[in-house]
């Protein structure tokens, strides 16, 4: 039972995935499957996080070798977690939470945009009106124009604000407040409402200026780049070992690598610039040879590997789906 149920689920879902590749009507199952996997993986993260806290916590508590590193890991784990959840330093979202809500069949949504780099344009879209009907608009009791509903009972109200020199570019919130913030807006005698700007923490936790963003930008990214940069040194040291002329194969590898390396530099072009570019002789110029090695030899070799991989993937998948290979499911014993 411990293995039968997982095996059945694996078989059923796997077969469904294979079938949906040939049945367009079932293609939604692939997306559904990946959504379910994401949910599972997100829940499993609790396991991973818990394991991380436990293993590093144990090291710190027992003062094991390298416990200081574990302390740093735990400190920044909790710091990042709290800063992200509490949204420290997050700017409010530049929009509205509600407008004309709860006003019978008439409803409205608002969108804000910056035009000409400076002017602020606020579009209020009203729907639920009677087709072709006309209505006056008032903001804080002052007439603000008229609208005529289209045949579908929809109408747009456009408010333009010239901008405010005091507001830094891109900050819509203060301008919104100037245009209509807190004021009652009426659509004839049918509906009324007012803007309710989003709350303080409504912005994205990764938005510029937030504490989470700061940690990511000035802590995480430099560290990540440092690790990645080490790759350059490792490529050099690995190449040094790999390109030793020990036997015939190594000599061939060394020669090919030398030509390709030269062909990727300006020196390679200059070295054979005196040779004609066309004809049989032209083939032996370094840029041409490099291109030929990459396009013919390299492509042929990598495609052969790819074909083998594709067949291997299919075969392994079949073994897993049919339950021939089930060591990943744990022990047979109950």
């Amino acid at each position, binding site marked *: 039972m411990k293995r039968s149920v997982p095996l059945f689920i694996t078989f059923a879902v796997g077969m469904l995935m294979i079938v949906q590749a*040939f049945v367009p009507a079932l293609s939604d199952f692939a997306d559904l499957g990946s959504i379910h996997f994401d949910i599972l993986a997100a829940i499993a993260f609790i396991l991973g996080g818990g394991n991380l806290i436990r293993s590093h916590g144990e090291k710190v508590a027992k003062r094991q070798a390298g416990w200081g590193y574990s302390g740093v890991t735990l400190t920044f784990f909790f710091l990042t977690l709290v800063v992200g959840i509490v949204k420290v330093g997050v700017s409010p979202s530049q929009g509205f939470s509600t407008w004309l809500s709860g006003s019978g069949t008439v409803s409205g949504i608002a969108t804000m945009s910056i035009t000409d780099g400076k002017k602020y344009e606020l579009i209020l879209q009203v729907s639920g009106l009677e087709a072709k009907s006309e209505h006056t608009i008032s903001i804080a009791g002052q007439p603000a124009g008229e609208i005529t509903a289209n045949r579908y009972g929809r109408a747009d109200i456009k408010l333009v604000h010239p901008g405010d020199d005091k507001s830094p570019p891109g900050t819509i919130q203060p301008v919104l407040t100037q245009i209509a913030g807190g004021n009652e807006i009426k659509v004839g005698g049918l509906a009324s409402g007012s803007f309710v700007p989003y709350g303080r923490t409504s912005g994205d936790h990764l938005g510029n200026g937030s504490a989470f963003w700061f940690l990511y930008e000035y802590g995480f990214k430099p560290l990540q780049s440092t690790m990645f940069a080490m790759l350059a040194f490792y490529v050099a040291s690995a190449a040094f070992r790999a390109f030793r002329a020990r036997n015939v194969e190594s000599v061939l590898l060394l020669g090919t690598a030398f030509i390709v390396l030269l062909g990727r530099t300006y020196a390679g072009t200059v070295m054979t610039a005196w040779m004609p570019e066309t004809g049989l002789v032209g083939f032996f110029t370094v840029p041409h040879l490099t291109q030929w090695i990459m396009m013919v030899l390299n492509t042929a070799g990598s495609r052969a590997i790819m074909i083998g991989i594709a067949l291997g993937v299919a075969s392994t998948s079949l073994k897993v789906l049919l339950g021939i290979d089930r060591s990943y499911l744990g022990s047979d014993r109950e």
Partner: protein
Amino acid sequence: MAQRFGRIVVAGLVVIGVSAASARGQDGPTGLAGGDSAEVVKAWGELSEQLVATQALVDQLDKLRSEGADSDALNSVALGRSVGLIRKTIRETEHILLKHNPAVAGQIDWAELKRLIKDLHYSRDGQERSELVAEWHRKLPSVIAAVFELLPPLVAYDAPNDKGKAIKLCWKAQPSFASVRIERFDLTRAAGDDKILKSDDAEWVEVHVGAGIGPGSEILDKKRVKPNHDYEYRLRGGAEGEWATLIHTAPVVTAKAQWFDYAKRYYMTLVLIFVAAVAFYIQLAKSGANLNLRKIAGLEAVDEAVGRATEMGRPILFIPGIQDMNDIQTVAGLIILGHVAKIAAEHDAQLEVPTSKSLVMTVARETVAAAYMDAGRPDAYDEKSIYYVTDDQFGYVAAVTGTMVRKKPATCIYMGAFYAESLILAETANTTGAIQIAGTAMPAQLPFFVAACDYTLIGEEFFAASAYLSGAPDQLGSLKGQDVGKVIVLVLLTIGTVLASVVSIGYMRYTAVDDWLIFLKDTFLNVSS
């Protein structure tokens, strides 16, 4: 349902007939006759797209000729592309007309058209080629125009091989448009059954408004199209506020989800052959047949590497890649982990598995626990030796390389999906003097592993490792089945290479050989689309 379908068929035929008749300025239905209506509409829709593209090329060539371009310029700019496209159009037009309207098909001299295209291709003389271009240019538009006239002005048809959430539309350019000032177009759609569509209650929803859908456009409507719903399309054109200049209505079309992607039929045949071969050889192996397996040095070395770790009293570091359980490479890596863990348990060696994903950690623990139990050493299993590090690629690398430097493992085994971290890990372990065995199906990382590790399982060897290590007959059978797949690929590759070589020489182009090559390419190289 049958009645409803029947009504749609009749409505479709009537609308097509009327549209076609109005396009020719004659009474009664013209071009479309016989066959299943939906199939006819679809065929005409596809043909419209083809003709529209061909017409555009003809116009391009005409412009070049009027500008005094010589034959070389014509050839370099448009000819090569045109000959291929027009040949395809001619072939498909002939096929569709013969199937749906043999009478019209009989009026066209197809052999003459094909001869013209062939002559054009083989011509090497500049002057002769120029004359052929001129002749071709005189003939082809008249043929296209003759067929074009049969088509309804606006064709809407169910997008093929989809889940019933898209409608394809095509509308042709009409000569009468040239004298009309059309600034923008307005494509609207009404949904509902046939009754609603014919009444005033139908609500027309905008699909596209603006200048982006000029004559000859192909439009794919995916805006909330629902399967098994009927849609009617209306295209209006004119100056701003004067929409009545041009109005076309497409026949009612039903969006349908297809139960089989016909474009993948050959692909599915290959999959079935492959599955059958694997199943056959598994049965054969189970029945006791002797299946030979060549020696894989990297897997032969696993025992030696584990023994070395035991002798040195240092741990074995197993890294299952940085992908999650939805990657088959991770699954293959964990299967190998099971075998390695069993050998480690038998040798009483210490095994450490840092993982980059929480799910991988959970599965790895199950796998290793089972292996220790199978080896009769459940007491030696330590859950803490399999731990989660971080999801981040380089954060994981930092932690694992730190472990390598501090603990100096005797053996490092990399089995799974790797990216840029492959070389950092392998080079770091190399500096600590560890024996290294790697296996991955990431072609870009294989050179790094080959350069830095003692043994590397390349591509398919990595997937064969589980069968190799277990030695179970059913698993070995699956490997033999894989060889059948290789034979199929080899045969197709050989045929494709021979055909491509023959066609590239030139004398077989635009013949049946070229057709076979196109068929092979379309069938086996473009299956994903």
